[in-house]
Each structure stands twice: as C-alpha cells, then as structure tokens.
C-alpha cells in the first residue's frame, strides 16, 4: 500500500503528457491550423528549396548509376556490399521506431505515444522508401527488380525460398505496405476533421475524398478501434521479424563477423536505438518551431531518452558478446576478425562507434540530460552517426579481410556513394517537410481522447472547459 502510494507520488511529479491548458476543441485547432493556415511560414519554403536541391543530387547520382552501372560506387571484390547495404540497414532501422511507437506502445497502453505516433509513422514510411532504394540500385540492373518476386516467368526460374535475401524481399515489402495501412487508418478521422474545418474548396474536396466520408458514428468507432488494435498486434511481431531477417541476411553468410546467432536480436535493438534517436532529432526542433511544447512535452523527451538508454545498453551487450565469442570460440578467423576490427585499418570506425553508441548514451542516466532538449538533440545526432558507423563496421571490416590474405583489400565510398547517401537524407527531409504542411503531424482524435481523459481525471468536467471556448 505504501509502495503504491510512493509510485503514485512519483507519477504526479512527472511532467504532464499534455499541457493542462488544452481542451478537446483547442487541441484540434492547434494541430489543424498548422495545415490549414493560408500563411505558409517562410522558413518552410527555404526548407523545401534546400531539400529539393539535395534530392536532385540524389536523382542525379541515381541517373548516372543507371547509365554507368555499379562500377561508379566503391564496391569491388572483396567488399561487394558497401554503402548500399550500410545505408539500407541504417534506414530500415530508423523506420522501426515509428512502428514501435505506434504499435508496441499502443498495446502497452502508453498514452504518451499519442503526441508522436503520427509523426513517427510518417518517418517510418519515408525511411523505408529511402531504405528500399538501396538494395534495388545495388542489383546492378534495377530495371529487372521484379525478378525478385515469384511469378511464372519465361526462364522457368523461381526465387530461392531458403535464402534470407528472399525472405527480406517479402519482409520489407510487407513492412512498407502494413506501415502505410496503419498510417492511413490512423489518418481517416483526422482527415474528416480537416474536411470539416477547411475553408478552401479544393482542400475540402481532397480531404473529403481521403476521409472516405468518415462521420464519427459510434458503431464505426467501435470497429475502427478493433481494426486499429489488431493492426497494432500484427505490426508488433512484424517489426521484430523485419530486422531479424535483415540480421539473418548477414548471419546466413559464413564470413567471420557475420556468421553469428546474436545478429537478429542485436539488430532489432539497434534498430529501435537508432529509430528513437531519429525521432528525437526530428521532434526537438519541430516542437520548438511550431510551438508544440504543450503537446510534445518534456515527458516525451524524458521517455525517449530512457528508451535510447535501454536499447543502447542492449546494443553494448551485443558488442561485448561479439568480442567475447571471438575469443571464446577459439577460432583463428573469428579472433583475427575481432582484433582486426579493433586495431586494423578500420579501427577508427570501430572506436568511433564505441564512442557514439556506448560512451555517449551513458550521459542519458542523468535526468537533467534527458530533459534538456538541446543536449538530447546533440546526443541523438551522435547516436544516429554511431549507428551508421556500426553498420559500416559490420559490412566493411568483416569483408575486407576474410580467410585468405591474398584476397584482402580496402574499401572506401566514392563521391557517388556519398552523393547517394546524403541525397537520401535530403529526400527523407523533403518528404517530411511536405507531410507536415498537408497532413496533421499529430493525431488529433487521439489527442482529443487524451485531453478528455485528463480533464476527467483532474476533476474538472470536460463540459465546463468546453463551454469556455
């Protein structure tokens, strides 16, 4: 009993999930006015212009690749999986936080997810779009990508069903589709709100069509909640399976440094780690620019910091186990790979990842660090870099020196590799910037529900608050 009271007291001390001044009506106004305003903020145009230029660089790099072939990249024997696979794993990992926030936290009834789930789901979609580009471009002949899918072709061939690479095709395409469905279902009631509030005739028609004529009927809501919960239940194991299969892409190979049973769980933890870092990187400036501090509160930053800390520790355990198994296996090649990573030509990459992913997140133990937006923002960027370095270390150091010294080699990305990678960052940002202008970046109907619950809990009846405005 006393323990319970203590827990309650600590919970009361936490910053609120939503600022107390918001009502059911005003929270809708606040979120929808960002979309429905006639006055587009000037920095928005600047953002579009900048990210458009970077996206053009990406299209240019892709165009030249289609013309010349993958020879323009740094990939060669022995390192045939270069930037493309590093970037693929990095982007798909970033996407995973969106599904985690929308699905797993939904099932766990973590109400703080409401302020960030829509945005994180959009981030997932755009990250998966960026991720999907890389394996396709890496095919060499991207225009025959459909050979990956099973269909009765004239060559009489089928995909190799026992290969994780084929599983990956199914996993990533299912993941992209289900993420899109989840996101759209979440949007339907909000699109109806925009339809009802829009002054512009064209906007009204477009939002009207997209909302499918949603009218908020009690029976519709009943089915809607069932569908939403089931989607959450389906997406949760899906997200785990996707990055496990990405881990198996590596673990299925016999290369030392890849051939490891720890890969699937360690990849999933790494994905959530980097994904939350990206959510923090994006939401911290956004809440500031759009004045959403009352909706995405310090509590959210604190919680995201805690999740980064927890998943960071799992990742650290993964690194420690890799070193331990390298030693304990008593296998020459495993141990050579381990020492080569730490002290070989790519030691700088290894120690950089240790610094970014293990040393830096230690600071997240401090509540002060987690609740200071600017500090958390810097840490999140360091983690993003660290997770990219992790994939770089896994892909490149494992391949560049395997069994035979005669087949060793070095690898470095070319300007085209960098242009493609940085280009996807611009493309990702462009998609997000367009998204926040035309769709509500926070789920309005879930915020209304949250605010109404809070008002009832606080003892002020929602009725009083509603009549005020």
């Amino acid at each position, binding site marked *: 009993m006393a323990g319970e009271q203590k827990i309650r007291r600590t919970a009361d001390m936490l910053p609120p999930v939503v600022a107390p001044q918001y*009502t*059911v*009506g005003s929270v*809708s106004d606040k979120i929808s006015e960002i979309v429905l305003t006639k006055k587009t903020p000037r920095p928005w145009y600047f953002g579009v212009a900048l990210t458009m230029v970077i996206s053009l660089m990406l299209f240019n790099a892709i165009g030249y690749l289609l013309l010349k072939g993958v020879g323009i990249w740094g990939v060669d024997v022995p390192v045939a999986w270069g930037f493309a696979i590093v970037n693929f794993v990095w982007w798909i990992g970033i996407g995973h936080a969106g599904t985690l926030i929308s699905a797993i936290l939904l099932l766990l009834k973590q109400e703080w997810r409401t302020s960030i789930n829509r945005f994180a789901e959009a981030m997932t979609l755009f990250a998966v779009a960026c991720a999907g580009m890389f394996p396709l471009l890496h095919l060499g002949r991207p225009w025959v990508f459909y050979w990956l899918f*099973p269909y009765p072709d004239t060559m*009489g*061939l*089928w995909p190799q*069903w*026992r290969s*994780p690479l*084929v*599983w990956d095709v*199914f*996993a990533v395409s*299912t993941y992209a*589709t*289900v993420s899109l*469905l*989840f996101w*759209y*279902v979440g949007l339907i009631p909000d699109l*109806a*709100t925009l*339809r*009802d*509030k829009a002054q512009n005739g064209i906007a009204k028609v477009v939002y*009207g069509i997209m909302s*499918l*004529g*949603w*009218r*908020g*009927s*009690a*029976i*519709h*809501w*009943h*089915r*809607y909640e*069932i*569908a939403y919960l*089931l*989607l959450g239940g*389906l*997406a949760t*194991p*899906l997200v785990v*399976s996707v990055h496990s*299969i990405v881990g198996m892409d590596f673990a299925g190979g016999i290369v030392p440094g890849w051939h490891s049973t720890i890969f699937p769980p360690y990849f999933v933890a790494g994905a959530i780690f980097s994904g939350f870092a990206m959510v923090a990187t994006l939401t911290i400036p956004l809440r500031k620019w759009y004045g959403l501090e009352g909706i995405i509160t310090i509590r959210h930053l604190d919680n995201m910091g805690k999740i980064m800390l927890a998943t960071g520790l799992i990742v650290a355990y993964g690194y420690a186990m890799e070193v331990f198994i390298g030693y304990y296996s008593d296998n020459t090649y495993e141990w050579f790979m381990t020492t080569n990573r730490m002290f070989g030509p790519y030691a700088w990459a290894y120690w950089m990842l240790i610094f970014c992913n293990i040393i830096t997140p230690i600071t997240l133990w401090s509540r002060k660090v987690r609740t200071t937006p600017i500090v958390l923002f810097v840490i999140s960027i360091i983690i993003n870099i660290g997770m990219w370095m992790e994939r770089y270390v896994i892909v490149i150091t494992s391949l560049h020196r395997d069994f035979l010294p005669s087949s060793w080699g070095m690898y470095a990305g070319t300007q085209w590799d960098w242009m493609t990678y940085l280009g996807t960052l611009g493309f990702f940002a462009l998609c997000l910037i367009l998204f926040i202008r035309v769709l509500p970046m926070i789920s309005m*109907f*879930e915020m*209304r*529900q949250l605010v*109404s619950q809070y008002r009832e809990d606080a003892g002020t009846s*929602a*009725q009083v608050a*509603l*009549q005020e405005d």
Partner: protein
Amino acid sequence: MSTSHKVHGLMAEFSDGDELLAATRRAYEAGYRQMDAYTPFPIHGLAEAIGFRHSRLPLIVLLGGLTGTATAFLLQWYPAVIDYPVNIGGRPLNSWPAFVPIMFELTVLFASFAAVLGMIGLNGLPKPYHPVFNVERFQLASKDRFFLCIQSNDPKFDLTQTRQFLEDQRPHEVAEVAP
C-alpha cells in the same frame, strides 16, 4: 404523419461525451432502435448503448491471416517440391522450416488488409453523401461536439414525440435532419 417521411431523423447535440452516453442509454430504454451517435473520438460503451453487440471484424482478420499463411506455404511448396525440385545433398524438398519466415510475413500482410478493408467495408465507407451532414452544426462532430440521431425509419419515431424526448435530455440543440 406525412412529415416523418421527409426527414432522415432528429439530431440532438451535446457538449459532453458522458451526457451523450446517458441520453443514448435512455433512448434505448425508451424503445428506440434505429439511431446512431456521432462523436469526435471513440467513447467506450457508446456502441453497446445503441444496441450494437459484437463485430465480425476479428473473424474476418483471422480468416485473412490464415489465407495468407496458406498462400505463402503453397507459393513456396509448389516450386520447391513440384515445379523446380533441386536436390541439395539429399535434403528434403519440402523443407518447411525455411518457409516459415515468408509464411509469417504473408499472414501479417493478408490479416492487415483484412482488418483495414473489413473495417471500411463493414462501416459502409466510402460514403461521400450522408444525410447527417445536412445539419449545419454537424461539422463540429469531428471537433468537440457530440450528437445523437434518432432515425425516422424507427417504428417508434414520431416527429413531435421524439423531439420532445430529445429535448428532455437537455441537449444544446435539436435539429431536423434533411434526407
């Protein structure tokens, strides 16, 4: 009572979800069955108060998921065993454990489509036109107002009596819904 044929129903507006829920329960007790409530966010117990018992949606999702599992198994089993058998060191052709990841993925894919399309289909969406939108203030149903509509196809519906019943629930306003 020729007027009752010219309206879709009568709609009462409330400013609070709890008031709406109470009014809906009383309407059900009063014998009204053909009615619907409209809210800006889901309110638990409201669908039950209208008389809605259970949804077939979970069953549809289960069937969708099982279809996905079966599709994925056949998709892999047929090429691996019948159409293009490859003998790899005498290992079994029907190596079903290796088929599990894709079976899982397609289960999720099909079940998700079943959930979304099932929800949209059972709800009768997309429906671009619906009489309730004829009420001027109904656009607030997607913001912060709560509505109860008793439809004219209810056997107990009577324009004056039903209006009186709704007025007794102390709503913000009662409006006729043009068909």
